[in-house]
């Protein structure tokens, strides 16, 4: 974990509300693992706390984040330009454990992403070899508000993933929740019980995913977003309620953000 002033080396707009930035930061890009995040200091006194963002891609000397403009902080961040310098702390938290194909059966894994949840899963998808199991390719379930917000789809297909999509407004793929899509896929002829599920997205989506995983008895790892003040484990702001007897509330920023789905106490 380091604290660095990072130069923005490129900026890309997926849409006016989905923006990605690349930062020059070898110290981070060479050590960060999928599922880990960074805390970005957004310029301006009114942005008191740093904002957490998952790393979605790395190159040798740089890493990328992709974010949706949802409030004043991301609005400001979206206005940053190539050459601007931001102070960043990272990499932070624990990433996704790499458990992919079931070695005996050759059964592939599945990724389920909702909204900006694709950020960390895209990084994971790049690091895991999609390969092809006995059954099928690994599948990415991609959910978003609408067609425009379904990012990284072409890249994932090119890498060899099968990508199934759902949108809230039906503007692309199936209309409705990505978890419903996953659920009906599971019970469809093409469906299979994956070796492991990785998921990131809104709380409700994760809860549903966890439920399906439990029913199907599939190992499932989810990345949880909680409001964070420090991002490095000192403030206890990001607590996630777990079934752990010793440590009921775990810190999303330190013990997480990736948790085993069965650990979480949903309310």
């Amino acid at each position, binding site marked *: *974990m*380091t*604290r660095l002033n990072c130069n923005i080396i490129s900026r890309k707009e997926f849409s006016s509300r989905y923006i990605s930035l690349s930062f020059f930061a070898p110290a981070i890009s060479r050590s960060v693992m999928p599922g880990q995040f960074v805390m970005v*200091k957004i310029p301006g*006194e*009114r*942005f*008191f*706390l*740093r904002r957490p963002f998952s790393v979605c891609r790395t190159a040798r000397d740089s890493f990328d984040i992709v974010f949706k403009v949802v*409030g004043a902080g991301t609005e400001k961040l979206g206005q940053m330009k190539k050459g601007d310098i931001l*102070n960043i*702390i990272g990499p932070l938290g624990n990433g996704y454990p790499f458990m992919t194909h079931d070695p005996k059966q050759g059964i592939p894994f599945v990724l389920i992403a909702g909204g900006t949840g694709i950020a960390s899963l895209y990084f994971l998808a790049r690091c895991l070899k999609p390969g092809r199991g006995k059954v099928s390719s690994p599948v990415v379930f991609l959910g978003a508000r609408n067609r425009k917000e379904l990012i990284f789809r072409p890249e994932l297909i090119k890498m060899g993933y099968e990508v199934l999509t759902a949108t809230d407004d039906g503007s692309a793929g199936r209309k409705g929740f990505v978890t419903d899509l996953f659920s009906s896929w599971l019970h469809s002829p093409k469906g299979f019980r994956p070796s492991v599920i990785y998921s990131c997205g809104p709380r409700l989506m994760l809860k549903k995913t966890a439920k399906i995983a439990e029913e199907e008895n599939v190992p499932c790892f989810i990345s949880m977003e*909680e*409001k*964070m*003040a*420090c991002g*490095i*484990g*000192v*403030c*206890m*702001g*990001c*607590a*996630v*309620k777990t079934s752990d007897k*010793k*440590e*009921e*509330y775990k810190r999303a920023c*330190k013990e997480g953000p990736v948790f085993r789905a069965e650990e979480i106490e949903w*309310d």
Partner: protein
Amino acid sequence: MGLKQTAVNLAGIKMKNPVMTASGTFGYGLEYADLIDLDKLGAIVTKTITPEPRCGNQQPRIFELPYGLINTIGLQNVGLERLLSEKLPALRKITRTPVIASIGGYTTADYVKSVKGLAGSGVAGIELNISCPNVKTGYKLKKTNYLTISQNPGKTYRLVREVKKNTRLPLIVKLSPNVTDITEIAASAEKAGADALCLINTFPAMAYAGSGKDKYSVPIFGGLSGPCIKPLALRMVHQVCRTVKIPVVAMGGIMNGEDARDFLQAGAVAVAVGTGNFVDPGIIIDIINALQDTDGLPPRHKDTKKKGIS
């Protein structure tokens, strides 16, 4: 212009400079070790611990404002045992900076148990947290809430006296700003044997945390910290420094060297950085450097012209 002398002695705790961490904003001291040189700090104050571990409040716990922070952590902590067996030994391995253990509880016995447990643990002092606004009970419950007993001079007196009997470590009593007259509480703590005072803890505050249509479904009650409380904290520190003889550790919105100097000028012997650590972990080191580089520590207790309410 050489480095200025900044060492201070806080009720027997020898600090190489007057800048310490505020409880609850620096974990158990271990987490920041990657980012800053702990040896540079004047002292490290741990998260408040209770005899038993506590899991704290529900989410959301954090609400950001443009000028401060509302938190309702609810004293999530690892408990006395793990502090002693895991955290303190680990911290001792990586730094020699004096460590002050902050303790909280629900009964006098809780506090006594913690101070006894801390004897011989190597901590340089004890901070008595009797001013946390974030623990269940609160304004509707009439039952004594030990974590806000610093709102009552008599109860403050009795608890401090009892704790003091059971420890030889320097005892720093942390006060709540949410009182009509903080000098009265300060005097009670002093009379009961406190070796130093620490002010201030967070202010009880509220915000609606959601946005849009959901907004009013999530009122968040918690403690307000950060730059917005500085003018209130400074007033209280100034007042208390003029009414007690024991040293005062001051905090509340300290974000830079100038803020720190304001509190030292108002009469504090040391200052603590809380919310500032979140904004930037480097702030505390910048503050220490600022005090060393510019003019050293300001002369204290020197205000002559006074205006307004004073």
